[in-house]
């Protein structure tokens, strides 16, 4: 079955420390993966997608098919990075696509 696992409910780091939010997936096809972020009192928004191989707000994520992982990384955490982060896997269906989300990880950056 298709599944996304985010093993950490909460990740707490100090400002300036490196951040790695873990995401593992289970999918037999070719995966399309995303990271979404929800800041306090804001709507859920797309942070980055693996297909574009971009860096947004200093975050990067590399798809590792061998380890079935798509971890989100940032070398130096900032206080404004504190938010809820969701990893998501896109599933293609006959008439469209849908996203399967992990349970989410709260990132707390302490000063």
């Amino acid at each position, binding site marked *: 079955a298709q599944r996304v696992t985010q093993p950490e409910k909460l990740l707490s780091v100090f400002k300036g420390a490196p951040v790695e939010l873990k995401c593992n997936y289970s999918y037999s096809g070719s995966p399309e993966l995303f990271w979404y972020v929800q800041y306090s009192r804001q709507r*859920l928004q797309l942070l980055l997608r693996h297909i574009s191989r971009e860096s947004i707000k200093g975050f990067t994520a590399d798809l590792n098919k061998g380890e079935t992982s798509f971890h989100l990384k940032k070398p130096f955490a900032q206080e404004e990075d504190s938010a809820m982060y969701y990893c998501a896997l896109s599933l293609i269906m006959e008439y469209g696509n849908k996203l*399967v989300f992990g349970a989410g990880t709260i990132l707390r950056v302490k000063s």
Partner: protein
Amino acid sequence: DVKVTQSSRYLVKRTGEKVFLECVQDMDHENMFWYRQDPGLGLRLIYFSYDVKMKEKGDIPEGYSVSREKKERFSLILESASTNQTSMYLCASSLFGAGYGYTFGSGTRLTVV
């Protein structure tokens, strides 16, 4: 700049009431989705629609129905609200294709008492 609009930010309803949650998008997206967001469970798909009058069940459709009479509008209906349907409900839309992300609404926090 708001592209996906959910009609209510907060709702309080009584057990047994019929509840309508409305969502409108202005991006001409084919796909629309309803999720519920619960702590520790992430986002779970209730229903989705890939075209007008078309709908598909998601992972947790029990107790819900949907309506899509126009491309821009997707409604979620709780036929008889129950306390276990207290949750944050998120609407989203996207273009067709695996590489496209979703655009989310700001959510409706529903409390059933």
